[in-house]
């Protein structure tokens, strides 16, 4: 995950439009990815991304460097997203528990994923599998895959203890390994040929 240069941050705090544009451009995909993880809807994710970035830039003058700027931003996105979903009457997003387990037997994930595979690209298959995970695991994994975000940073963004983050990530990966078994087997077979 790219942490903005301190010079860029300083210029953005001074109101330099070029620096602000640079910050927005480089952070947009990460913010949008988190927003997609929370809302699961492209239009909602775009709205949330825009709202979060406006608040982020307006508040950047008060940033004093106590934490990484990216961590600060992602926490803002997560909080805004959870608040937005709550106001819409969606089921509450809890980041401190494992959520409802995916029943990998009754859900017949292999057939489900195989069916998706016939009409979708690999990325869509993976996203479909990730969408089956509980909210907390989904968000923890998304942050985890942002270019090796540290567990401590993820814990700060999600506002949960470090061990909870480790548990979310571990269990999320285990479930994905089951859900994506056909795809993983194909890749392993292709790799061994």
């Amino acid at each position, binding site marked *: 995950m790219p942490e903005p240069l301190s010079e860029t941050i300083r210029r953005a705090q001074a109101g330099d439009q070029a620096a602000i544009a640079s910050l927005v451009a480089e952070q947009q995909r990460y913010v949008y990815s988190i927003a997609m993880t929370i809302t699961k809807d492209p239009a909602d994710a775009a709205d949330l*991304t*825009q709202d979060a970035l406006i608040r982020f830039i307006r508040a950047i003058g008060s940033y004093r460097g106590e934490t990484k700027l990216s961590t600060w931003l992602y926490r803002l996105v997560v909080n805004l997203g959870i608040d937005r979903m709550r106001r819409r009457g969606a089921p509450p997003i809890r980041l401190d528990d494992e959520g409802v387990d995916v029943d990998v037997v009754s859900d017949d994930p292999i057939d489900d994923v195989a069916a998706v595979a016939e009409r979708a690209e690999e990325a869509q298959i*993976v996203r479909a599998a990730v969408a089956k995970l509980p909210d907390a695991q989904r968000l923890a*994994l998304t942050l985890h895959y942002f270019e090796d975000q540290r567990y401590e940073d993820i814990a700060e963004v999600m506002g949960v203890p470090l061990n909870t983050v480790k548990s979310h990530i571990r269990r999320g990966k285990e479930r994905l390994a089951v859900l994506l078994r056909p795809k993983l087997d194909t890749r392993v077979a292709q790799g061994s040929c």
Partner: protein
Amino acid sequence: MDDRQLWPDGQPAWERDVDALVRPSLLIDPPADVQRSILATVLQATARTQAAVMPTPIGEPGARSIPLAAYLLLAAVLVAYVAAISSLQGLFGGAGWVPALFTQLLAVSERLVGPLPTGEPLALIWLLLQRAPWLALLPLGWLLWERDRVAARAA
């Protein structure tokens, strides 16, 4: 999960496979038009906020607006000065009091509001009078014309 097959860094093989498959798919770029729209909206919103909190720049020559009080003060000085000079001219019958009046007015205005740009009415009038002194006769011409008009109507 089978954790017995480990990579040299201690990570189980299955986990590495999951990472390799999932990582590229979880980072999602918004569509290009959405990216442009978000960037434009953020810049517009933040620029508006900054403009609202930006203090008004002061001390920039040519960009400063002259307060109304300065104009009123100048007008008061002008009236007093015209009255005093006129009465002196009437007493001693001297000449050239109009250029002296404007010179003094400009000196006073400079002291009050700083050097006047040429767009200021007072400086513009002074420049016009320097280049075409006959313009100073226009008020006199208008007074004579008005007097004749009234006289003709009375007749």
